[in-house]
C-alpha cells in the first residue's frame, strides 16, 4: 500500500503476489508476452483460477474474524457503558435543572407571603438561584465531556468501519476492475479474448483491503485503550463521588423547598378563611397532594441517581480492567447492574412527569 510508483513500476516484484506463490507469471520470466499482457495476466490468472478469489475472500474473512474477535466483547461492554452513562448523565443534568426550577418556584411562592409582611419587598430584587449559570455550566461541561468520552469508546471499539474506509476499500476493487476492463478494451486487438475481471473478484479485493484496514485499526485500539481507560478511571471515580456529594445537597435542598412550599400553601389555606370559593379551596388542597407526590418521587429519583452514580464508577473500573484483559465476568455483572440502574432511573422520570397535575372532581 505504501510502495512508491518507482518501486511499483521498476521493481521486478511488481506482481510479487504471483512470485510468492511460485507461479510463473513474473514479468522477467515470461518474455514471450508483453509486460502489459503480463500485467493483465495477473488478473487473467486471477480470473481463470477461482481458487485465487476464494483465497482472497478466505483471507479477508479470517482477517475480519480476527478483527471482530479482538474487539467485540469490549465493544459490547463499551456500548452498554456508554448507553447507561448517557442515562445517568442526562439524569444528573435534569436533576440540577429540576432543583433550580424548584428553588425558583419556592421563591415565587415565598414572595406571595413576603408581599404582605415585608415592606421592602420588590419584584426587582432578583431571586437567588440555587446555582449560578457559571456554576451550572461547570457541571454540565464536565458531564458532557464524560459523555463524549463514553461515546468515543464506543466508536473506537465498535469495529464498524467508517464510511470513508468502506468507500476507499470499494474504490480499490472498482479500480482493479476498471483497470482490467480498460486493458481488455484497449488491447483487444493485440491480445484477443483478454478476460475481464469478475465483480466477485473485485469485491474480494475490496473486502481484503477493508479487512486489512480493520485489522490495523483493531490493533491500534487494543494497544491504546487499556492505558486511556486506566488513566480515566481515577477521574471517573472522583467525578462520581463529587456528583454524589452534589446530589446529597440537592436532595436536602429539595426536601426543604418542597416542605416550605407545601407549608406556605397550607398556611395560606388556613388563613384565607372564606375569601376563596369551595372549588378554589379544593384546588388548593389538591395541589398540596400534587406537591407531596412530587416531593416523594423527586427524592426517590435522586436516591436512584446516587445508586446509579456509584454503579457507574464501579462499572468503569471493571471496563478499565476488561480493556486489559482482566476479570471479564466482573464487567458483565457490572454492566447489568448499570443497565438496571439506568432503567430504574428512566422509570422514575416517568413517575415524576406524571405527578404534575391535580384535577378535582365536582
Amino acid at each position, binding site marked *: *500500500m*505504501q510502495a512508491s*510508483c518507482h518501486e*511499483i513500476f521498476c521493481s521486478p516484484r511488481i506482481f510479487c503476489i504471483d512470485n510468492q506463490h511460485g507461479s510463473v507469471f513474473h514479468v522477467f520470466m515470461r518474455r514471450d508476452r*508483453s509486460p*502489459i499482457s503480463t*500485467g493483465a495476466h495477473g488478473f487473467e490468472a486471477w480470473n481463470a483460477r477461482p481458487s485465487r478469489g476464494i483465497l482472497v475472500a478466505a483471507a479477508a474473512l479470517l482477517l475480519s474474524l480476527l478483527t471482530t474477535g479482538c474487539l467485540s466483547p469490549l465493544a459490547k461492554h463499551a456500548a452498554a457503558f456508554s448507553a447507561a452513562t448517557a442515562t445517568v448523565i442526562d439524569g444528573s443534568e435534569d436533576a440540577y435543572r429540576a432543583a433550580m426550577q424548584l428553588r425558583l418556584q419556592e421563591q415565587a411562592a415565598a414572595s406571595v407571603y413576603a408581599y404582605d409582611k415585608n415592606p421592602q419587598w420588590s419584584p426587582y430584587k432578583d431571586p437567588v438561584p*440555587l*446555582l449560578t449559570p*457559571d*456554576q451550572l455550566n*461547570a*457541571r454540565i*461541561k*464536565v458531564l458532557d465531556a464524560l459523555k*463524549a*468520552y463514553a461515546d*468515543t*469508546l464506543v*466508536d*473506537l471499539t465498535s469495529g464498524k*468501519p467508517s464510511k*470513508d474506509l468502506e468507500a*476507499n*476499500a470499494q*474504490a*480499490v476493487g472498482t*479500480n*482493479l476492475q*476498471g*483497470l482490467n476492463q*480498460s*486493458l481488455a478494451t484497449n488491447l483487444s486487438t*493485440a491480445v484477443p479474448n483478454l478476460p475481464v475481471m469478475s465483480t466477485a473478484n473485485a469485491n474480494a479485493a475490496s473486502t481484503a*483491503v*477493508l479487512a486489512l*484496514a480493520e485489522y490495523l*485499526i483493531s490493533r*491500534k*485500539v487494543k494497544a*491504546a485503550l487499556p492505558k*486511556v481507560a486506566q*488513566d*480515566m478511571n481515577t*477521574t471517573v471515580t*472522583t*467525578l462520581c463521588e*463529587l456528583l454524589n*456529594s452534589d446530589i446529597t*445537597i440537592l436532595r*436536602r*435542598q429539595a*426536601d*426543604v423547598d418542597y*416542605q*416550605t412550599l407545601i*407549608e*406556605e400553601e397550607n*398556611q395560606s389555606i*388556613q388563613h384565607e378563611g372564606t375569601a376563596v370559593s369551595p372549588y378554589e379551596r379544593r384546588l388548593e388542597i389538591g395541589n398540596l397532594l400534587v406537591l407531596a407526590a412530587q416531593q416523594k418521587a423527586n427524592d426517590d429519583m435522586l436516591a436512584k441517581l446516587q445508586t446509579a452514580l456509584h454503579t457507574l464508577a464501579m462499572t468503569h473500573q471493571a471496563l478499565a480492567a476488561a480493556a486489559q484483559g482482566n476479570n471479564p465476568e466482573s464487567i458483565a455483572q457490572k454492566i447489568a447492574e448499570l443497565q438496571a440502574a439506568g432503567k430504574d432511573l428512566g422509570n422514575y422520570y416517568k413517575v415524576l412527569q406524571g405527578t404534575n397535575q391535580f384535577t378535582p372532581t365536582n
Partner: protein
Amino acid sequence: MGTPTSPVLQNPDPAASYQAVYDALGIAYWDAPAGPNKDLIAQSQKAIADILTQLDAQGLTSNTALFLQLAPKINAVNASLKTIQDQIANITKDAGTAATVISAISKVLSLFPPLV
C-alpha cells in the same frame, strides 16, 4: 445518664444536623392543630430553611471548584482519544491511497504500447 449531646455536636455535618431538626419540626407542624402554635412552628422552620439553603449554596460552590479541577483531566483523556481517532483516520486514508495508486497504475498501463 448524662446530659444529652446536642445533635450539632453529635454530627460533624452541620447541614445534616439542621436538616434533622427541620424534618422533626415538619412532623410537629402537621401534628399541631391550626392556630398560633402551628404558625410558630412554620416560622421556626422557615428560619432553619434559610440557614440550610445558605449551607447548601456554600456546599455547591465548594463542589464547583472541584468540578472545574476535573474538567482539564477529562479533556486530556478526550484529547488522547482524538489522537487515536486521527491515527485510525490515517489508516483509512492509507486504504484511500491504495485506491489512488491502483487508479494511477491503471491509467499509466493503459498508455503502454504493447511490446512485440
